[in-house]
Every structure is written in structure tokens, then in C-alpha cells.
């Protein structure tokens, strides 16, 4: 199972801060496709996905127990 976290504006789109999904063995790109199918209002082009607190690439594969986070454009400082 994969734990998903949504932050800031993305959390307001999904309506939830986190959920657990059965996407073990899928790629980060497939996770994004899954998420946009479930939440059509998620905008592409500016969202990054972190896996286990590190920015991931689209081809990275998700392993059981991974924590994936949807990172909208950051605005700290």
C-alpha cells in the first residue's frame, strides 16, 4: 500500500490531507494519472511528487509502504 499526502491548494482540491491506496509497483507517472483521474481539478505542469521525502522522477517505481506527497509550487520565505 502507498500512503498519499496532499498539501496546500492541492489538499483543497482533493478535500483530504491523506489517503492510502493500492498502487504498489506502479510508477510515479502512473500515480499522477491515477490522481488526476480521481481528482480532475488537479493541475499538471507545476506539481511535483515526493516519495519518502525526496523529489521523485516520473519513471520511479513505488514500493510497498512508500509515502508519496503531492507538492504544489512552493512559496516559502
Amino acid at each position, binding site marked *: 500500500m502507498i500512503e498519499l*499526502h496532499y*498539501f*496546500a*491548494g492541492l489538499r*483543497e482540491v482533493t478535500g483530504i490531507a491523506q489517503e492510502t491506496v493500492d498502487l504498489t509497483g506502479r510508477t*510515479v*507517472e502512473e500515480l*499522477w494519472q491515477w490522481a488526476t483521474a480521481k481528482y480532475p481539478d488537479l493541475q*499538471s*505542469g*507545476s*506539481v*511535483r*511528487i*515526493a516519495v519518502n*521525502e*525526496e*523529489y*521523485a*522522477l*516520473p519513471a520511479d517505481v513505488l514500493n510497498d509502504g512508500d509515502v508519496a*506527497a503531492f*507538492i*504544489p*509550487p*512552493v*512559496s*516559502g*520565505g
Partner: protein
Amino acid sequence: MKAFEIVSEPINPQRYADYVLRPEAGAVTLFTGHVREWTKGIRTLYLAYEAYIPMAEKKLAQIGQEIEEKWEGTRVAIAHRIGELAISDIAVVIAVSSPHRKSAYEANEYAIERIKEIVPIWKKEIWEDGEEWIGHQKKKPKEELL
């Protein structure tokens, strides 16, 4: 305190300056970023910051490591506050010490630029007639985008 931390209480910048000061240091730069009332003619009532805390602290530490590799002899401490902040509150503090002043100035600016690129912290501006999550302040590396 930790050298790289996300905090929810008011920031005391002196603690971070003290942390980086050492006998080898001839300079300490201390940057504090504050909540600004007016942005492009729109009045902000207050800001709400949110962070992915464990990853944000990890990324702040990464910035510190990058600086210590780029500018020899530097030492860095960074804190960012989250939650609701009022006008003029300190949102971020960056302390850098170095043997000579040039490195301390350059490294300090590098730190704030990198925070705006890679640290998962988000700012929501709350105005009299609405609110909005702020983003797109810096361009992101393209290969990471979806």
C-alpha cells in the same frame, strides 16, 4: 533548537546567529524575512504558512550542506515558521558565518533562493476580500514536473 527547523512559535533570530558563531568566523550574516502588508497594491491581513515538516527540514539541511560545500568554512542555521503570521512577523531566519564577509553575504542570499525552489512550504495570503495559496515564485527543474 535545531540548526534546520520548522517552528510554530515566534522566531528569535539571535539564537541562530549565536549557533553559527565560532572563533574562526569573522562575519555573520543574519537574514530575517517578514510578513509584508502590501503586495502589488493588494493589502494582506495576515499569512498562513504550511509545510511538509519532515521533508522541509531535510531540504533546509540539504541547503546548509550545499552552502558548506560551495563556500569553505561557512556554518549555516535556518528556521521557517508556520501557522498564522501577522504583518511584520518573522517568517524565516537564515544565519551564515564565514571567515570573511563576502562568503557570508553570498551564501545567505543563495539560501533564500534555494528555499523558494525546493523546500515544501506554502504561503496563503489572506486579504480583506479573499485568500489565495501563493506559488510559482521560482521556476522548477523541468524533469521533476509532471
